[in-house]
């Protein structure tokens, strides 16, 4: 189908109305960095399309102990905030300046691996997503949002409208290993958030990107370092656990065996960095 109509609703209610009118034949798009290449190549041939650029979802604000990010906040604006440093790191390693000016945080959650590096950081930060439908909002932890490769819990009559990130003290790091220094899909991405008390890890969230059908936590690795002081044995065990439990795959960027080994290498590097950072991360602030 060549596109017969392209809508730019200027409010969420109007957008939901369009979703209801056109149902499953309506392609929803935000920054366009996922949909437009497929349309330009003649792989995706939608009839009716809705862009969310003007739907009023581009506010980013700190609300108490949370950072609330509108779904169409661009990645560039994540670089301008320092409330959650890991989000700045992740955005900085994603695509290029022009693409960061267009790509949105909400869109990043729908980018199939090996893309979607900001989504990996959000998973490690235990973010929640707000899904808005005709019957109002519902909130889903990001860890339960993805249901498979390119599929999610989003219902046909809903829009993802915002992402909420808890602002917690803790040691965080974000490591992306790609074939190039910048503007490159990941071989593997590792995002870590550690809650630390008196030199001991009391809570660990390790998220892996490009090592499964969607960004995934590594519970085995998390268990291996919880209760430790990140001594080499614990870090080594966590790295091995992550390599075992990840669901690496082969694509044009890297093969399954290479990704599985790089998961081990980069979880080790990420945790080692947190173990002896420049500043006193263990027992220190965010």
């Amino acid at each position: 189908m060549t596109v017969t109509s392209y809508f730019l609703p200027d409010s969420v209610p109007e957008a939901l109305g369009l979703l209801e009118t056109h149902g499953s034949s309506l392609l929803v798009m935000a920054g366009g960095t996922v949909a437009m290449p497929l349309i330009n190549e003649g792989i995706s041939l939608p009839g009716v399309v809705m862009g969310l650029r003007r739907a009023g979802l581009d506010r980013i604000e700190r609300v108490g102990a949370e950072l609330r990010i509108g779904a169409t906040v661009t990645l560039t604006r994540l670089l301008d905030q320092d409330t959650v440093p890991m989000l700045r790191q992740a955005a900085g390693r994603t695509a290029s300046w022009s693409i960061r000016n267009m790509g949105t945080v909400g869109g990043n959650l729908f980018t199939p691996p090996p893309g979607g590096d900001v989504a990996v950081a959000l998973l490690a930060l235990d973010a929640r997503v707000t899904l808005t439908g005709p019957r109002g909002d519902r909130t889903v932890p990001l860890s339960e949002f993805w249901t498979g490769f390119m599929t999610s819990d989003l219902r046909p009559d809903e829009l993802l409208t915002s992402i909420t990130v808890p602002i917690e003290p803790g040691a965080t790091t974000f490591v992306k290993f790609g074939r190039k220094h910048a503007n490159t899909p990941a071989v593997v991405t590792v995002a870590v958030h550690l809650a630390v008390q008196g030199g001991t890890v009391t809570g660990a969230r390790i998220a892996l990107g490009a090592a499964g059908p969607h960004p995934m936590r590594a519970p085995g690795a998390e268990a291996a370092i919880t209760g430790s002081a990140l001594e080499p044995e614990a870090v080594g065990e966590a790295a091995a656990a992550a390599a075992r439990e990840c669901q690496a795959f082969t694509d044009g960027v890297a093969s399954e065996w290479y990704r599985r080994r790089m998961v081990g290498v980069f979880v080790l590097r990420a945790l080692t960095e947190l173990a002896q950072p420049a500043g006193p991360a263990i027992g220190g602030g965010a």
Partner: protein
Amino acid sequence: MDKVIVTFELAGRDVDVMVSPMTTLQSVLRNQLGHTAVKDGCRQGGCGSCTVLVDGEPMMSCLLPVEDVAGRSVITLEGITPTDGLHPIQQAFLDANGYQCGYCTPGMIVVAKALLDHNPSPSRDEVVDALSGNVCRCTGYLPIIEAIESAVRAAGQQEARA
């Protein structure tokens, strides 16, 4: 399938174009407005040869439906080139041979302009990072980086004298 009229500002003046829905800004600029300095290297947001400034920010015009820039200001290389002579960045590219086949050059210069507008004296790393979305298959990037750095120096001396 009904066409739509879209109005936006191009190089400082308003233009109206009649398009089929969701025609890309790249296609409108190249095929309807004669701005063929906007190149067509991939249409996937991966090569940067179609970079334009939208309200002063670099964007890939191949991924932008023209409706999305309605009412906004668009600048292409045609808008950066003065009516006579060359923009200092263009002169720097010419002097430093910051091009060979010329296909990536417009995108490189548009991004360089946006970079210097934001940061008049960027470090080499900042120049490299700004260009990370622009692919060049001929020069190996060094002459392009050196061209931008010489434009920065020239602008610096300009200020010193002003």
